[in-house]
C-alpha cells in the first residue's frame, strides 16, 4: 500500500509541475494535439483508429456529464437517454428528410436540450437526489418509447440506412480517417465551450452551487435557474455525441444507448476526476481502451475491469487527476512569515 501511495505522489508532483509551468503546459497540449492529428497518417490499422474515435466520443460525453455532475454537483444517471434522443433525432431527420450530419446534429442538440429542460425544470427546483432518480427513470422511458413507438422509431428493428457524414462533398469514413477528424473537431469545440463556461461568471455560479447551495443563494445566485442551465447545456452536448455515434455506425436501435452507457459515462467522470477537464480525457482513454487491451483475457476481462475500478476507489477515491494539489501553499510576495 505504501508503494501505491508513493506512486500517486509521483503523479501528483508531475501534475503540479505541469500546472505551475505555463510554458510546459502549453507545449504539452500542443504536442498532444499534434499526435492526435497525426494518428491516422502513421499507418495504424482502422481498428485502432476506431478505438481512438470512440475515446474521443466518450470524452465528449464525459465532459458534458462533468459539467452537471462535476461542476454543478447534480448527479445524472440517465445521460444515455439524451444520447438516444440525439441519435434518434439525427437518424430520423437523415433518413426521412435527407438532412446531412451538420444540420441533423444541430437539430439533435436542440431536441435533447428541450427534453433536458422538461426533465430539469421540475426536478432541479428541489435540492438533493431528485434529479438522480428522475434521470434514472428518464433513461428507461426513452428506451421503452424507442421500442414501442414503431411508427416513429421502427421499434426493435431500429433505424438503418443512415448516411455517413459528408462535408463539402467528401464522405467521411473510418478508413480515410474522416470520422476520426470529425470527432476530434467536435471534441475540441466541446472542450472549448466547457472551458469558456467554467471560466465565466456562470461557471463560478455552478461551482458555488456545487459547494454550498444555501450560501450560493445568499450571494444572490438564482440556483434553480443555473442548475437548469447547466443541465440543458449538458443534455445538448450529450445529444451531439449521440448524433455523431449514429452517423458513425449508421444504425440505431433501442439498445444502442442503454443503462450501461450511462454508467460507463459516470465511471469515466469519477475515474478521471470529477470537476477537472484533463481527468475526463484520461478517464475516457483508460475506460474505453481497457476492454480492448484485455481482449486476450476474453470473458474474464470485465472482472479485471471491475477490479481496477475497485482498487482505484481504494487508493485514489477523488479520481486519477481529481482532488486538490498537495503542494504547500505559497504566500504572495511581500509577506513575511511569523504572525500570531
Amino acid at each position, binding site marked *: 500500500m505504501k508503494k501505491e501511495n508513493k506512486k500517486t505522489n509521483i503523479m501528483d508532483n508531475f501534475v503540479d509541475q505541469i500546472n505551475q509551468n505555463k510554458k510546459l503546459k502549453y507545449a504539452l497540449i500542443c504536442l498532444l494535439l499534434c499526435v492526435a492529428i497525426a494518428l491516422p497518417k502513421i499507418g495504424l490499422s482502422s481498428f485502432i483508429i476506431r478505438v481512438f474515435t470512440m475515446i474521443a466520443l466518450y470524452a465528449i460525453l464525459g465532459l458534458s456529464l462533468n459539467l452537471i455532475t462535476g461542476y454543478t454537483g447534480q448527479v445524472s444517471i440517465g445521460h444515455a437517454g439524451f444520447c438516444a434522443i440525439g441519435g434518434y433525432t439525427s437518424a430520423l431527420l437523415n433518413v426521412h428528410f435527407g438532412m446531412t450530419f451538420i444540420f441533423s446534429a444541430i437539430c439533435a442538440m436542440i431536441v435533447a436540450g428541450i427534453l433536458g429542460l422538461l426533465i430539469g425544470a421540475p426536478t432541479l427546483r428541489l435540492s438533493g437526489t431528485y434529479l438522480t432518480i428522475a434521470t434514472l427513470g428518464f433513461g428507461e422511458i426513452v428506451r421503452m418509447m424507442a421500442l414501442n413507438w414503431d411508427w416513429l422509431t421502427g421499434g426493435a428493428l431500429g433505424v438503418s440506412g443512415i448516411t455517413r457524414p459528408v462535408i463539402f462533398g467528401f464522405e467521411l469514413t473510418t478508413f480515410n480517417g474522416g470520422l476520426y477528424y470529425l470527432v476530434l473537431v467536435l471534441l475540441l469545440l466541446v472542450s472549448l465551450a466547457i472551458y469558456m463556461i467554467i471560466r465565466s461568471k456562470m461557471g463560478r*455560479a455552478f461551482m458555488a452551487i456545487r459547494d454550498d447551495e444555501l450560501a450560493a443563494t*445568499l*450571494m444572490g445566485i438564482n440556483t434553480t435557474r443555473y442548475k437548469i442551465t447547466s443541465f440543458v447545456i449538458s443534455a445538448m452536448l450529450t445529444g451531439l455525441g449521440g448524433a455523431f455515434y449514429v452517423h458513425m455506425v449508421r444504425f440505431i436501435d433501442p439498445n444502442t444507448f442503454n443503462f450501461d452507457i450511462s454508467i460507463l459515462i459516470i465511471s469515466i467522470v469519477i475515474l478521471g476526476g470529477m470537476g477537472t477537464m484533463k481527468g475526463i480525457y484520461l478517464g475516457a482513454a483508460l475506460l474505453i481502451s481497457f476492454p480492448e487491451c484485455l481482449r486476450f483475457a476474453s470473458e474474464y476481462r470485465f472482472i479485471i475491469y471491475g477490479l481496477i475500478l475497485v482498487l482505484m476507489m481504494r487508493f485514489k477515491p477523488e479520481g486519477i487527476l481529481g482532488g486538490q494539489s498537495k503542494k504547500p501553499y505559497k504566500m504572495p510576495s511581500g509577506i513575511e512569515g511569523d504572525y500570531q
Partner: protein
Amino acid sequence: MLKMQNIHTYYDNIHALKGINLNINKGEIVTLIGSNGAGKTTTLGTITGLLKPKEGKILYNDEDITCVQPGHIVKKGISLSPEGREVFPQLTVFDNLKLGAYTRSDKKEIDQSYEMVYELFPRLFERKTQIAKTLSGGEQQMLAIGRALMSKPEILLLDEPSLGLSPNLVLLIFELIKDINKLGMTILLVEQNAKMALKVADRGYVLETGKIIIEGNAKELLNDDRVKQAYLGNL
C-alpha cells in the same frame, strides 16, 4: 431603515416566529440575542427571503420586501454572513470573494470592495489563492464576513460570527465588527455570546421562543436580570 412588523414564520406546522417587531436605524449595531431555538436564525432567514413569513411585513427603506426573491434582496443591499461560516470549500479565497460580488457589475467599484476587504482582513490577502476549506476556523469566518461585504450592503447581517472560535479570535472578530460599523455599515448581529454582543451593540433585542421579550439600550440590557432569565430560566 429596516422594519419588521408582526412577523409570523412557520416551518410546516411549527410556529417559529410569533409576531416579531424589530427596527434597525441607519448606522447602528443592533444585536439579537437569545438561547437555542429562540428563533434568531429564523429571523435572519425571513429577512433575507430564504423563508417566507405567513403574516406580517418587512419594510426596507419604506419598501415592502416581504416576498422578494433572495437574489433581489442581496441586490437591494442586505447581505447575510450565514451561521457556521458556509464558505465555498473547494474554491479559492479570491473566488469566494468574487462570488460575494455576484450581483454587481461595475468592475471599478468591485475592485474598491476587494481593497476594503483586504484592508480589514489582511490575512485573506495573504491567502488569496488558497482553497477555502484549508483555512482555519477563524480565517473562514473572516472570509464569510468579507464575502458578505463584497456585495456592498447597506445592512450586514451576521449570524453567530463567534461560533466555534477561540476567545482570542472572538475578541478580534468583535473588534472588526466595530471597525466595519465605523465604515458606515449598519449591522444586525445575532449572537449566543450575549455579554460580548451587548458590549459592542447600540441596542439589543432579547428573543425567547419566537417572541421578543425585552428590547432596549444595550448598556442597560447588560445589567438586566431578565436577560439572564431568558437564557437560564427562573432560578
